[in-house]
């Protein structure tokens, strides 16, 4: 892991942090619960790391742990999007909703 890669990662982390704060701070309290389940689903992107482990077959241990990790993370992907979608379907306006 070159020191340049580290710096790059730090820059990316810093910028993403700023975006996170700017964006999340402005989400209406109305949607805080769906927000929680959505970020949950997005965070489950860790599944990509797990997939690589499970597939690259570098060692038996890696494959086993990787596979379990895929199960755990992917269940979050499916469950997270599913429930967020269900919640948002519920939110209806009495006025015709402007897109």
């Amino acid at each position, binding site marked *: 892991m070159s020191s340049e890669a580290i710096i790059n990662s730090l820059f990316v982390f810093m910028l993403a942090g700023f975006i*996170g704060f700017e964006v999340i701070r402005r989400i209406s309290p109305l949607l805080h619960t769906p927000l929680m389940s959505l970020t949950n689903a997005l965070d489950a992107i860790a599944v*990509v790391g797990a997939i690589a482990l499970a597939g690259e077959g570098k060692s038996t241990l890696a494959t086993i*742990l990787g596979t379990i990790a895929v199960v755990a993370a992917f269940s979050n992907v499916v469950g997270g999007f599913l429930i967020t979608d269900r919640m948002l379907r519920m939110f209806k306006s009495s006025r015709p909703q402007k897109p």
Partner: protein
Amino acid sequence: MAHVSNTIIEIIYLIATALFILSLKWMSGPSTARRGILAGEVGMALAIGGTLLEHGIIDYRWIAIGLVLGAIIGVPLGMVQMTAVPQRTALSHAFGSCCVTLVGTAEFYLRTPNVPKFMMSVLSMEIILGALTFTGSLMAAGKLQEVLPQRPITYKGQNFVNLGLLAVAIGIAVRLVTHPGETHLFPFMVGIPLVFGVMMIVPIGGADMPTVISLLNSYAGLSAAAMGFVLNSKLLIIAGALDGSSGFILSVIMSKAMNRSFANVLFGAFGQVQTAAAGDTEAKTVRSATAEEAAGILAAANKVVVVPGYGMAVAQAQHKVRELYDSLTKRGVDIKFAIHPVAGRMPGHMNVLLAEADIPYDKLMDMDDANPEFPQTDVALIIGANDVTNPAARTDASSPIYGMPILDVDKARTVMVIKRSMSPGFAGIDNPLYYLDRTLMLFGDAKGFVGDIVRELGGGAHH
């Protein structure tokens, strides 16, 4: 060639990241939120697709099995009752951090003994945060689901023990950073945080869990970001940072609205909420009323503001409330809902329940919009809410919730409170509101009582 197509995969990740950010931007309001989910789903699909294309991958069987099993577990997790959302959220944090911890462990054994210092530090951070979030979230879920005892379990020197555990884990991490070859230490660096996660939650009351959960949420985000550093994946770093800041901000909002010091939350909300002796209650007198009387008052009102709280959630009363909303609207009564930021047991709890019962979201006012309305309100109908309406927060400097922003229901002409007894709410303190002359207590289960009122209104209520 391999080179080029790696670039292509990276570009796919770039697009996925952009979609993730848009997904959160579009969550800002209900009108764009659906689009937000879509963006998130497409981004996720792209990211997973891109990974499957990667060259290193030689064997797809285990991946397939994993994905299938994951989907099978995920669907029920996505179909839970709305009232079960808090524990569901905790559970998914557990799954997420489980994944992170496992990947981190595997990475360590693949790379040891030659792991660069920085790499080893982030790896340790990933694993420590991941492990404690894993068990911590499981505990939280257990307490919320009430399979574990809700009440805080405390003993002398608890904080000392807990912080001690954490210190040891960090010490081991430091040692491993300098001597990444000492694999025998590694299991402890995983194990001790697992224990710490449990110990951390033990002393915290069930009602405090939501704050803990969103804190664990930001831990989970951080550990995912750390994993991104290890795997040098910008996609992961960004997703982790977004998740982390989201959890962080939500816990700040909660602790502010609960009037708890933010530090108190940051350090895992150690210690329990002080339960003030509500002994002097009998002294003062309260006026109570029947569903029939309540229906009469409501029917006579022009403007009614409903203040739902945790009680509505536990009683599952939202659908009855919807019926009440309908029959009052039919009678031409202007009925709105005032939602306190920490009403219920998680942020936005009430909004989801009322939305579930098909109450249009433009009838829901947040605290800032609602408070100016109470002086012109004929009836403030409180359904299973307590602390968020407690005037002591404004008036009584000695009260533990003094300074907490509340809904000024006591400014309404008449106040009606549906709850089962005089017992206190989450903060465990008495509520002077109940002893005002303008206040009528409607004792009973939220669902049942609202049902009765609706029936009374149905059967041509008075005048």
